[in-house]
């Protein structure tokens, strides 16, 4: 017997022939067919026990009574059970304790990051990096204070959010729009503000300093370092919420006002607000 010799296969051919090469018609094993039928039966069983056929009044319910919504509820219950002990401690511990306990800190940060993405990222950005008019929460500039308690109060009651009685209400007057100052005076004050901020090209004048003293120092302080009780920003540091060019500063003085933040106290539960507070505080600028 040599390798070139054709061996009798006892299998018929399909009748197809290409240049002398024929195709064997080897039958599939029958169990393969049975397996195929079994998969069809399996799918029929699925049809029966799970919601499947759409009807005008909704899909058939299935014999198991399984429902995606109840499955989600069950999963959430399961999650609450796992989170339970940590959540209980988050609810009772003080903010300072949470930040000092590694397990609580990581739980609060995880929970806070999720809550932040759902509720805060719309204005403050996905990484809390802020935008023009919306503070960056990673830096160390805080309009209303950067201690845990300050942050918590801001989240709970919001800023200039009239629906909340305890909200932070202090607002900068619209010096131009309301006719308190004329355009020339505003321009002089803007120059003075730029000088306080040690911005390049600032042109301070004695008249500007006097106007600042008369109109702005009540809230921003004589030295321009701001006042957190009033939500008045420090004008001497390197950060500018709306921008540091003269036109922007003139517009801010002329129109006054300030950002608005909703109060979350009624929308989020206490533990979530705690977690959000710790999360924001731990971003880097917390005091």
């Amino acid at each position, binding site marked *: 017997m040599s390798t070139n010799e054709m061996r009798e296969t006892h299998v018929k051919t399909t009748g197809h022939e290409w240049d002398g090469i024929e195709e064997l018609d080897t*039958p599939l*094993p029958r169990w*393969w067919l049975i397996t195929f039928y079994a998969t069809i039966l399996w799918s029929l069983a699925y049809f029966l026990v799970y919601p499947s056929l759409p009807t005008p009044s909704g899909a058939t319910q299935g014999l198991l009574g399984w429902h995606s919504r109840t499955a989600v509820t069950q999963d959430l219950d399961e999650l609450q059970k796992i989170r339970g002990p940590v959540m209980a401690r988050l609810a009772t511990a003080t903010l300072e304790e949470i930040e000092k306990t590694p397990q609580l800190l990581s739980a609060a940060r995880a929970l806070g990051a999720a809550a932040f993405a759902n509720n805060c990222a719309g204005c403050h950005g996905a990484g809390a990096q802020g935008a023009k008019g919306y503070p960056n929460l990673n830096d160390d*500039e805080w309009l209303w204070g950067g201690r845990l308690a300050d942050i918590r109060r801001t989240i709970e009651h919001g800023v200039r959010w009239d629906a909340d009685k305890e909200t932070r209400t202090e607002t900068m007057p619209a010096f131009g729009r309301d006719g308190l100052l004329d355009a020339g005076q505003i321009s002089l004050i803007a120059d003075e503000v730029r000088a306080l901020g040690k911005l390049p090209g600032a042109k301070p004048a004695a008249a500007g300093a006097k106007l600042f003293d008369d109109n702005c120092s009540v809230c921003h302080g004589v030295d321009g370092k701001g006042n957190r009780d009033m939500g008045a920003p420090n004008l001497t540091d390197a950060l500018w919420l709306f921008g540091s060019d003269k036109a922007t500063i003139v517009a801010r003085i002329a129109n006054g006002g300030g950002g608005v933040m909703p109060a979350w106290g009624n929308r989020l539960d206490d533990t979530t607000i705690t977690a959000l507070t710790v999360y924001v505080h*731990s971003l880097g600028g917390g005091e």
Partner: protein
Amino acid sequence: MSATESSRTASSGSLYAARKAIYPKEVEGSFRRIKWGLLAFTLAVYYLLPFVRWDRGPGAPTQAVLVDFPHRRFYFFFIEIWPQEVYYLTGLLILAALVLFLMNAVAGRIWCGYLCPQTVWTDLYLSAERWIEGDARERARKDAGPRTSKIRREKIAKHALWLVIAWWTGGAWVLYFADAPTLVHQLATFQPGVSQAYVWIGIFTFTTYMLAGHMREQVCLYMCPWPRIQAALTDEYALNVTFRYDRGEPRMSLKQGLALRAAGGRAGDCVDCGQCVAVCPTGVDIREGASLGCVQCGLCIDACDGVMAKIGRAPRLIAYDTQMNCERRKSGAAPIFKPLRARTLIYAMLILAIGGMMSLTLATRGDARLSVIHDRNPLAVRLTDGALRNAYTVRFANMSGEPRRFALEVEGLDQAEVEIVGVEPDAQGRFVVVVGPDQTREARALVTLRGDKPSAAQTPIVFVSRDLDSGASVEAKDAFLQP
């Protein structure tokens, strides 16, 4: 063959063929003994390994081999693998493939014939079948004849025994995924909370019963890819279970052969008794040459040797040999055996190299790790005093059995200060985190640069986690970015 002729032979029968029942006959001999030995050994390893204990210190699992999914750990005696080290599994799979190739290059389908679970469990099921229903001829007769109540009872007993074996197979499988003695106790006393184990035992009971009881050689013929790969990988020097047709052919009955030889003619040693086919577990006729269905278990060698001994002819008419040697002997040349050749040497060298590399990395891997991810957004933060800050998520891993203290440092950027949120600096100004045994700890690290800024927008920096007790350190590279 012309087109008209071939169309005449075209099939008209069913598209599907029923499995031809195979009744492998019992056989005795050296290969059968090897198979019994390996069967006992592999099954003993499979069933007993979960109960082997290994001391890893307090709090750690005491099971020598354990796949701990809930805690994301794999334990193998003194080795503990974390999920991020899954490349060791990749290495093991590569090693397994190369060992398979080497076995094949030396002596064919050693894996298929002796070690494959499909072979081992089929062998076990066959012996259970023989024990209850009798040997091949008896079973064939019973299947062909009328179903008496005795035969029915035997069938029920056989399937029950098969199911028990299958149940024990699945039962042992789940023991690798939980503490074995505890799980055995829970299963035996029907305690709640181990329903997952029951599901897996059920699945493995079903697959074992189907594959070893009903599918048998069909698995090798239709499901397993290895016969196809093996056929492509083999060469003319690889030993395979071979019918030595140079000595066996022309085959004829003992009587005819003796008469022909007395008359000075040439008669082969094969007396066409069919014992090689009768004992074959996959129903192959080895005399037709190497085939996909032959798992090379060597039982036909035992069967033929038994016949040769009875009729006073030399043994090993079927033997581990090559077709090339049959041809050479036929033409009067000496057979060639070359276990050492480029193929086997390269496989062996690759096995040594990869095995060595894996052992080396395993032996020299540290038991502490540090990984760092730079904040994606914002990349850099300016502070009120004009300083720049980058924030990172760092994760300290302590793979040892003791709690350890790590101090975080940053290198590569002068004047950069590092701090960890929620951690007070110690007396020397270091930020130290304590990581429990066999745990990781995530922290938020801030790197602040006051003073001169580097000219490049991106400065490579290195985070160093220093073990305060041993002084050893691990590093992680990252960068400090400017807005």
